[in-house]
């Protein structure tokens, strides 16, 4: 329709070409965004399943070598996620990672949560930023994408919730009371360490509130352990043994 006016403007065919180009660019962008959203959902699902698996294995574990083994199984399962990130690396090349960060974050944080849980079960330590980044690198050590500090911190912040569940459900097992005291110290450390990052990362404040609640629950567990045994002048392990004998009669 506009053809008759071609002289007074850049010709309509050049407009056509220009917008044809934009159209392809936008379509490609939307398609990539969609693919990343779907991949992120898959990653979230695998990570969640890994967390449940780790809980199961950890509860069955009777000693630290069983825990280390549980950790290994969990880490193995997470290789699936690492492979997915490897296959996505071309979508996230160069400056593209930051373009789609909002789509990637949910899955990535869930992955970091699962990874840090497996890592904790291995040696009771907190996985570092560098260690997380290292799991997201190709064979030659090149990162699939730059790990953002906020994804790292928000991911490991969720770990405290899982540790709370771990402490509560392990309470009745032999050694569970000692484990609860250990986790209590660990989570208290996390809470304190994360505090100074909250001015930089807005969502971390909300997660710190959740961590505070988890910590209070873990402290209650530890408190119960101490108060119930303090009537008796015997070491924890001996009390555990007495109870265990009764229960297994």
């Amino acid at each position, binding site marked *: 329709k506009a053809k008759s006016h071609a002289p007074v403007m850049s010709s309509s065919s050049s407009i056509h070409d220009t917008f044809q180009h934009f159209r392809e660019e936008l379509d490609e962008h939307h398609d990539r965004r969609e693919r990343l959203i779907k991949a992120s959902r898959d990653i979230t699902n695998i990570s*969640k*399943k890994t967390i*449940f698996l780790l*809980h*199961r294995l950890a*509860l069955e574990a009777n000693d630290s070598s069983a825990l280390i083994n549980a950790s290994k199984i969990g880490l193995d399962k997470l290789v699936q996620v690492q492979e997915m990130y490897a296959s996505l690396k071309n979508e996230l090349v160069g400056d593209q990672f930051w373009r789609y960060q909002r789509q990637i974050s949910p899955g990535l944080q869930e992955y970091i949560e699962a990874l840090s849980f497996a890592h904790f079960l291995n040696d009771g330590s907190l996985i570092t930023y560098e260690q997380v980044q290292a799991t997201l690198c190709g064979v030659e050590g090149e990162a699939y994408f730059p790990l953002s500090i906020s994804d790292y911190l928000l991911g490991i912040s969720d770990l405290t919730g899982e540790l709370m*569940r771990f402490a*509560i*459900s392990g*309470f*009745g097992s032999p050694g569970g009371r000692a484990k609860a005291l250990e986790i209590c110290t660990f989570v208290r450390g996390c809470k304190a360490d994360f505090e100074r990052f909250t001015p930089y990362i807005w969502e971390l404040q909300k997660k710190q509130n959740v961590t505070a609640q988890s910590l209070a629950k873990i402290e209650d*567990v530890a408190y*119960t352990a101490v108060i*119930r045994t303090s009537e*008796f002048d015997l070491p924890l392990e001996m*009390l555990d043994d*007495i*109870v265990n*004998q*009764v*229960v297994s009669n």
Partner: protein
Amino acid sequence: MDQQSLENLNQMLDHESDLRERIREQVNEFDKKTRTISGILSKIHSTPSVAIPSLIETIQAPLHSCGEITAALASLIPPNQFWRWKDMWCNSLRSAIFAAALSLYLTKGTLISLQGTSEILGIQDEWKDRVAISAEDYLHGLITMVNELSRLAVNAVILGDFEQPLRISAFVKGLFVGFSMLNLKNDTLRRRFDSLKYDMKKIEEVVYDISLRNLQTKH
């Protein structure tokens, strides 16, 4: 929209809203029944072990009478529309499942199966596209039972019964292992599974108290 389409749609919608009304009536009845049953069951906390079987006996009639409701629902719900309407009665149903599960545990010491629950509530297999017990509802019912058992462990001690807590402990531990096998989402079931962990912890405290005082042998 032509007149015919308008009327057809209107008629279909009227029919649906009618159906909803009639389901609601049944659910109200269902609700009354389960409220009465729960009221009676709440007496287990002040009933000595020995008198519990006869207490449980008194809820058998109202519990089985839930079959009237499930039958009425099965005749109301159109084929294949189970998932469309189930939310309307799932709270009442979960209460009934809880009551059935608790009854069986308190009399036989065993875990009720989904199939067994269906039988007690008169739910027939051939209704499965209209009225059935979903895995989720069954699991909710079991967790409610555990919530109650953790209170019972405490109250049994008050009544001088130190065996009950040990039995409960073993039973709940077994159930917990079962629940741990499930992969849950961040939904109600997951939140309630967390509550089960608390109950287990509470029960363990009681077992601990009893064991360290050697009370289990004292009765």
